[in-house]
């Protein structure tokens, strides 16, 4: 009975929403002209990066804070059990993983750099870095992480701290994350570099901290 009601409701909701979207008039507020008008002063040439790091920089600041918070939550609920013995892995696979990981680091740096003028940026680059670390973990080259040491803690928090320091300095100078146009490009690149490094570690940590307690299941 519940199934019929829920599925029927979902169907009706979809039909209504699609019908409403067909009738929808263009949005009353058009932000594209204002994005384009201020692009020259934003320090980057790609509109999405300009929105993320300049016009709505506080969104991205809170976003990295949310990621860090999620990682802390995972650290709080996973127990350090110590995984079992590492599985035997084909040495050829390990060698290929090493080569792939090296290339992925190059790709991550390129994506970070390309974010200023074409699709790319810190989050994409961080995701590639994290994927490289997960690949190394799956081929047995990188053990699952235990309780993070001091260096790893600083590495995980570095992106957020750099971003916060820049935001605090700019707050003293004037408004929240309103970059002076002359230094906007350099500041955004500094923030994005910190974000890429920390995001790689955080996203990999979401996987590696979870995979460390493999002996958890009864």
């Amino acid at each position, binding site marked *: 009975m519940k199934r019929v009601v*829920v599925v029927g409701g979902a169907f009706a909701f979809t039909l209504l929403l699609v019908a409403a979207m067909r009738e929808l008039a263009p949005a009353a507020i058009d932000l*594209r002209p204002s994005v384009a008008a201020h692009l020259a002063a934003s320090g980057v040439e790609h509109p999405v990066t300009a929105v993320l790091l300049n016009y709505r920089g506080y969104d991205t600041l809170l*976003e990295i804070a949310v990621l860090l918070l999620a990682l802390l939550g995972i650290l709080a609920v996973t127990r350090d059990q110590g995984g079992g013995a590492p599985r035997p892995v084909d040495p050829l696979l390990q060698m290929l993983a090493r080569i792939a990981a090296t290339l992925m680091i190059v790709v991550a740096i390129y994506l970070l750099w390309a974010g200023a003028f074409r699709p790319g940026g810190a989050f994409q680059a961080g995701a590639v870095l994290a994927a490289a670390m997960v690949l190394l973990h799956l081929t047995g080259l990188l053990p699952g992480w235990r309780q993070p040491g001091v260096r790893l803690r600083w590495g995980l928090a570095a992106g957020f701290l750099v971003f916060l320091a820049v935001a605090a300095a700019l707050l003293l100078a004037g408004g929240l994350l309103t970059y002076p146009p002359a230094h906007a490009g350099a500041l955004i690149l500094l923030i994005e570099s910190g974000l890429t490094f920390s995001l790689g570690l955080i996203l990999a940590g979401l996987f590696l901290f979870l995979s460390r307690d493999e002996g958890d299941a009864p």
Partner: protein
Amino acid sequence: MTSGLIFAGAGAALFAMGVAGVLLIEHLLRRILAFNLMGSGAFLVLVGLAQHHDAPDPVPQAMVLTGIVVAVAATALALALVRRLHGLTGSLELPEAEDD
């Protein structure tokens, strides 16, 4: 019927499927997948509607990018909680409430 509208319609369908999944599925791993389906549907609606009438708008795209990252964080936290539940009770379903 522009391609943007097709994206938005597919997003609405995905969102509805996700809602139905979250309500109907007891298995927590699948429920998390359904929850992610809901999120993907909402992102598709945002991006699709924004380019429905003319050129794409960078503001919704940036919002969706933020949303994807937050969804990843929420999913990872949910998976950690499910693993903990599985470690404690050996079950992948939520226990029935006492006063049911």
